[in-house]
Structures are given as structure tokens and as C-alpha cells.
């Protein structure tokens, strides 16, 4: 049989037309059938990280309850951490239809607000329709995260008053090399060198970050921060240039912020990073490794410590995999403050994570209803830990024991609420102590610039070019991969060309105005 007989031109054209029509119609759909033949709206959310194990099963259970309670379902898109900042920004700027996303100052909330991509929340919160949400998130937390125009643009996803950058270390190695206890930065450094010499592994592993070295107020290589955790640099965005304000700015009213290299302790931190790099104390692939790979090296027993934060998630994130790789291993959460738990680190109380509502969302009220829905203990637990009895069992009043591979939902991107959080049942004693400490606002000093969020609209081009220069010349410095003097010269030259003077002047002008308004 010839081809002509089997597939005529007319058939081809008709078939192509039918296929295109079908695709077009399919693309227009925004609902899903709930099995009863009726349509239920299904809303997309942007969440960072990997899809949790058993996610489909839990999502179906969540959606079943959501359908009954609110009449819609959710379909989160999980985006790898290494791509989240770029992809979420592109999705926002392209006007894509999704309901909520994670954002923050360290991500791109400034650009999103400036571009009108976020839904202001004040009126919605004041409507009284979201009582569970406003009951679970303290008003002072909203106030600490109010934008410079007076609006709230995100729900602070927090489980403590503030989080301090710290370390999670191998307890078994501390017993072997540090006499069972580390209470100062000097001891920690000695521990790293001893472990490196004795075990042939790196002392500290992480992917690259400016805050590892130029801490705020503590950095894992910023020794002065552990002695006196009172320095929080100012910046237009956290991946741009950091400026150091004058020590007496709060009393004098004059910010006089200078680039970080004019603050000697920060230069010392850069030199320390370089020494660690050359001595094999930190991983040498910081410039090209992602956080998951760096974390995997620690979990497989290839490093003595890794980066941590006082959010109560260190033990659950590392212990079981570490135990599989290194039988008998244990974990310790380390904060080598010179003053121990009497330290009063400066804090802005600005949340690390904010759940924002997309201005282009199909239904902003549904997005708020979801945020309210996850503010009820029963719903929060279902999303966060899975099905009770199947995925977890309660331990005491405030802890949970996972009984399946779930319990890995990124609550920080949707459902973290201080009063609703349960503690991992195997949480180490040291982590538990520091986690409880971090929940108390009284354990922190409010920074003079706590509510200062600068507006970069006047210096957008300079800021973009400075950010590009930081990416090129700053990142190798934080990684310790280049000579400090040579690297700093290159960085200074690049940012001066990009408009350092203009940016510095604008930052000081806005910061002075902020101080005057207090």
C-alpha cells in the first residue's frame, strides 16, 4: 500500500488541526475533577527544595481536607534551592499564575515589591477573616517585617524569635579531639586543625556565602562576632556590597557607613578564610558546589562540622544519614559565644523567610485562606509531619517521632508558626537548649537599624553592576580561593567603576533618614 493511500494530505491537515485544537483547549483548563464530576480549583505554590519523600500521598490527604474545608486544592512546585532564586524571580516577573512563594531580603523581595509583583497584606490581615493566622504569628513579627512603604508583603515564616548562624559538629570527634567540649572560637579552630591532621577530613564544609565570613552578627569564620555579636552590616541586597555603619550611629544619628573592607575585623575574617582554604580546613569547592552536595559530604562523614542555624532542624536534617555512614556518630550544635548563653546578639528580627502572595495570583483571598488554614494545629501537623499514626506519633506535649520517610516538608516556606511547631524527638540536648534560647526575644539586643529596609530604586543600575562585581570578585574572597590583597584590589576597582560612591551616599542618606525617624 502506498503512503498516499494510508495518509492523505487532507487527513494530515485535518489531524494537525484537531491536535492543535485539543492542545489549545487543554492549555486553557485551570481546574481539576474531584472524582465526583465537579470541578475544583487547584492552585500552584512555589516551594524551594526537593520534593519530600511520599509527597503525593500526603498532598492527596492535604487536598482531601482542603477540598472539604475551603473548596480548593494545592499543587506546589518544588524548585531546587540552587535554582529557586532565579526561577521564582522569572516566574514572578513573567506574571505566571501561582498563589504563594518563599521570598525574603536575601532572595529578591525588594525587586518583587518594586515591580508590583506582590500582594500587600495589611488590608487582608485587618479584615478579620484570617484569625488563625493572626493568632499564630505575633503582631510584632509582622511589624518587624514591614516594608519601607509601611505595608506588610509577607507572612514571617518563623519558629523562633531569631536565628543565629552556628555550626553542627560531630560529637564523637569533639570527644576524641577536643575533650568533649568546645566553648570558644579558638577551641573550635584548634579542633578543625586537629581533626584535619588526625582524620584527613575537612574541618568545616559549606557552599559559598558572604555571611559565612562577614557575619551578621556571627559568621562561621568571623571570630570577632563570637566575642562581640553586635555587628549587622547594612546593604541594599544581601548579594550586593555590605557596608559597616558607625558604632555610634544610634546616638549620633549619623550612619557614616563604609564598605566592609574598611572594617578591620572583616578583613581579618577574609584572611582567616584564605588560611583555612590553603591549609585544607574548609572545602575547596565552595565556589562550584551546591548546598545539598556540601551537606552530603558532612552526612557521609567527610567533615567535622557544617553550617547550621538555631531553627531546631539540625539534628533531624543530619543525624540519621550520618549514623548510617559513621556508626556511633553523634551531633552537637555549637555556638562558641564568648559569653555562652548570656550573650545578647544584635538582631533586626526580620524574618529569614517570608511567605508572599503573588499579585498575579488567580485568587489572593484563597492564598490567604490557605495561610490561615495551615495556622491550625491539626492542618499544620498534617502538612508538616504527615498523617498521624502513619508518618509520625506525638511524643510528650511538643515533640514528634517520625515513623515514615516523610516529615521533610519545607515548613519555612509555608507553615512555620512558633506556637504550632513540634520538636524532633531525637533532637540533641545541645540543639534543644539553643533552640529554646532562640525563641525568647529577651535573649537578643534590638539592632539600631532593625526596621531599616533601604529603597534601591534610585541606584538600580549601579546596584546591579556592583552585584555583578561581587559575584565575580567577592565570591572568590569569601571562599578563600584568591589572595586577599589582590582579590580586594580587584573588587575595589570593580565596585568603584560600578558606582560605589553613588551607592554609598544613597545608603547613608536613607539610613540617616531612618535614624531621624526613630
Amino acid at each position, binding site marked *: 500500500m502506498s503512503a498516499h493511500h494510508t495518509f492523505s494530505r487532507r487527513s494530515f*491537515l485535518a489531524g494537525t488541526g484537531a491536535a492543535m485544537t485539543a492542545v489549545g483547549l487543554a492549555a486553557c483548563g485551570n481546574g481539576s475533577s474531584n472524582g465526583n464530576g465537579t470541578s475544583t480549583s487547584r492552585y500552584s505554590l512555589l516551594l524551594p527544595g526537593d520534593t519530600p519523600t511520599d509527597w503525593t500521598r500526603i498532598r492527596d490527604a492535604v487536598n482531601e481536607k482542603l477540598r472539604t474545608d475551603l473548596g480548593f486544592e494545592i499543587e506546589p512546585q518544588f524548585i531546587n534551592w540552587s535554582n529557586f532564586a532565579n526561577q521564582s524571580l522569572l516566574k514572578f516577573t513573567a506574571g505566571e499564575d501561582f498563589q504563594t512563594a518563599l521570598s525574603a531580603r536575601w532572595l529578591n523581595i525588594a525587586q518583587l515589591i518594586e*515591580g508590583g509583583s506582590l500582594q500587600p497584606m495589611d488590608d487582608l490581615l485587618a479584615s478579620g477573616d484570617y484569625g488563625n493566622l493572626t493568632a499564630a504569628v505575633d503582631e510584632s513579627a509582622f511589624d518587624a517585617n514591614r516594608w519601607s512603604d509601611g505595608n506588610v508583603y509577607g507572612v514571617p515564616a518563623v519558629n523562633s524569635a531569631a536565628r543565629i548562624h552556628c555550626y553542627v559538629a560531630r560529637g564523637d570527634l569533639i570527644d576524641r579531639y577536643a575533650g568533649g567540649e568546645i566553648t570558644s572560637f579558638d577551641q573550635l579552630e584548634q579542633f578543625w586543625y586537629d581533626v584535619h591532621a588526625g582524620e584527613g577530613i575537612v574541618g568545616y564544609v559549606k557552599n559559598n556565602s558572604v555571611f559565612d565570613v562577614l557575619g551578621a552578627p556571627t559568621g562561621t569564620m568571623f571570630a570577632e562576632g563570637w566575642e562581640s555579636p553586635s555587628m549587622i552590616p547594612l546593604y541594599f541586597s544581601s548579594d550586593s556590597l555590605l557596608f559597616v555603619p558607625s558604632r555610634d550611629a544610634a546616638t549620633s544619628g549619623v550612619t557614616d557607613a563604609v564598605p566592609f573592607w574598611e572594617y578591620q575585623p572583616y578583613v581579618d575574617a577574609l584572611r582567616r578564610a584564605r588560611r583555612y582554604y590553603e591549609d585544607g580546613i574548609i*572545602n*575547596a569547592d565552595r*565556589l562550584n558546589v551546591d548546598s545539598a552536595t556540601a551537606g552530603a559530604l558532612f552526612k557521609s562523614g567527610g567533615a567535622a562540622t557544617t553550617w547550621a542555624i538555631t531553627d531546631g532542624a539540625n539534628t533531624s536534617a543530619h543525624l540519621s544519614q550520618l549514623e548510617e555512614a559513621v556508626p556511633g556518630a553523634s551531633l552537637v550544635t555549637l555556638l562558641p559565644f564568648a559569653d555562652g548563653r548570656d550573650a545578647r546578639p544584635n538582631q533586626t528580627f526580620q524574618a529569614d523567610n517570608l511567605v508572599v502572595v503573588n499579585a498575579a495570583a488567580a485568587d489572593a483571598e484563597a492564598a490567604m485562606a490557605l495561610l490561615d488554614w495551615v495556622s491550625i494545629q491539626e492542618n499544620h501537623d498534617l502538612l508538616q509531619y504527615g498523617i498521624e499514626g502513619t508518618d509520625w506519633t506525638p511524643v510528650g506535649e511538643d515533640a514528634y517521632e517520625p515513623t515514615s520517610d516523610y516529615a521533610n516538608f519545607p515548613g519555612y516556606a509555608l507553615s512555620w508558626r512558633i506556637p504550632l511547631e513540634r520538636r524532633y524527638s531525637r533532637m540533641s540536648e545541645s540543639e534543644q537548649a539553643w533552640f529554646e534560647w532562640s525563641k525568647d526575644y529577651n535573649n537578643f539586643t534590638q539592632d539600631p537599624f532593625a526596621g531599616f529596609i533601604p529603597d534601591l530604586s534610585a541606584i538600580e543600575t549601579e546596584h546591579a553592576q556592583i552585584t555583578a562585581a561581587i559575584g565575580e570578585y567577592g565570591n572568590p574572597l569569601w571562599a578563600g580561593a584568591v589572595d586577599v590583597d589582590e582579590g580586594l584590589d580587584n573588587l575595589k576597582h570593580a565596585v568603584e567603576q560600578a558606582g560605589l560612591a553613588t551607592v554609598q551616599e544613597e545608603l547613608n542618606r536613607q539610613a540617616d533618614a531612618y535614624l531621624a525617624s526613630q
Partner: protein
Amino acid sequence: MNTPGIRPAVAPHKRRSSRSQPAQKRDYGLVILAAPAVILLLVFAYGPMAGLIVAFQDFNIADGVFASPWAGLENFRFFFTSGDATRIMRNTLLLNVLFLSATLAVGVMLALMLNEIRGKVTKRFFQSVIFVPYFVSPIVVSIFLQAFLAGPGGRGGLINDAAGLFGIPSVTWYTEPGPWPWILTLVKVWQLGGYMSVIFLAAITAIPEEVYEAGEIDGASRAQMAWRITTPLLKPTAAILLVLGVGRIFYGDFATIYAIVGDNGTLFPTTDVIDTYVFRALRTRGDFGVTAAIGLVQSVVGFVLVVVATMVQRRYAKETSIL
């Protein structure tokens, strides 16, 4: 200019009259057949060109394309005053010239070698093996490369471990920009060598058997026939691939380079190309205007390069030019 008394080969009125003749019935069929492709081209290739207007705007989502304020050449200024424009253009051109020349040369060599394999099964096997890298994701390639060059924690890697056996000191490859044009070229050859060889192999099969028979009669060895018969006859195919490659020479192969280099600033002096720069600019500014402006520069330069390459080819390789 026509010389008086000499008639043109085809009378003008004759040509005009042929144009004005009614189209034959079968032409309608051809038009209908071509219509979907033409419509797709108009909608998806020419239609989006209207978006280039964004290159001259201070674009924001709230106002959209029609209401965003005009910015003149400000978006172009961002690129050309960044201080990086020269370096980025140099890298883009240099890397693409390296990629193009290396993949073409290796493609021809592999095709000649495959052509010499007599066993059909063996030939197919090797052909498949060298083609497989074409399907490997750049992300996977970047992981391979890390294992080869860095290893866990960035201190080691297969290459360094092997060098250590001979007492050669380790190199921290990911902080040394110098070798990266060559490393990336090797990656491209690994990825595309097999793909190119299949194209050349197809061209070789089209060479008439009589040509080789004549060579045999003249006493040529197999090597001489490969060098003096096959290689010259591959010139038209190579020329087409070259012109197509030159058309894309101002594009930086974003997928491969970004997957491997990422935001590693120490490697930018030799690896930062226009596409990776645009991506970073978009990411840091979230600004479609700058992206569109640089994309427009890219397209215009690419178009000029294609025209120049075609003209050069017509002038210096007239007999092999089909463009």
C-alpha cells in the same frame, strides 16, 4: 547596462506575462500544505519579535509592554558601560570559534575512521557509542567534570589523583581560568563529535563508488583515498555546517557553560559569555529590558556574521557553495 541592439536573454514582457498567469490548481494545494508551517513561523518566530520593543523600555510587569515608560538606549548603556562588554564579546567569539573548529575537525576525522570500518555491526556499535554523549544533559556533564577535576571537598579528582602518581602537583581547576577554554572545548568535542561524524558519514555514503574505483585503478592507498578523495568531497557539507555555526557564533551555549561554570567568578575572565552574562543580569535586576537589549545586540551581530560568512563562502569557495 544593455548594449543597444542586443536583446536580453528573456524578454521583460514575457516574464511579466508569466507572473500574471493564473496559478495552477496544484499550487493551491502547495499553499495549503505550507500554510501551517508559515503560520507557525509567523506566530512563533516573527510575532515575538514585537517584544523587542522592550529593549527600549523601562519595562515593568504592572504597566506591561504598552504602558511601560520609554528608556531610549539606557538598556544598551547598562551592557556597554558595565566594563565587561569587551571581555564578554571576546570570550563568546573565542569559545565559539574553538567549539566550531574542533567539533568540525573531529567530526570529519571520526567519520573517516568510521568509514574505514568494514564490519557493519562493529561500525554501528562505534557509531552509537560516540553518538550517545549528544544526549547527556549538561548538568550530568558538569557532575562528571567535578568528579574528574575536583572530587569530594574540591581536593582531588581523577585528574589530580592520576597526576599525583607521577609526582605532578595538584591543580585547583575551578579557580584557574586559563585552562577553561580548552576544557570546555574538550567537553563540546565529547558531546558533539559523534553527532557531527554522523552528518559527515551521511555525506560520505553519497560519494559515487566510481570515484573510489578510479582511485583504486590509479593505485591510491586507502589513506590516500580518504585524504585526496573523501576529504575534499566533504567540503560542501563542512561549509554548510560552518555557515550554520557562524550564524550562532554570537550565542554562548548557555546550557553547557552555565551548568559547568555557574556563578564561579574566578573563571569569568575566560568563560563568561554573552548568554551567561544576560542570565546574571536578568537574575540580579529581574529586568526584561536589559535582557532584550543584549539579546537584540546578539541577534544583529549574529545576522551580520551569517551574511558575511555566506558572502565569503560564495567568493572563495564558489564551487562548493549551495547558499
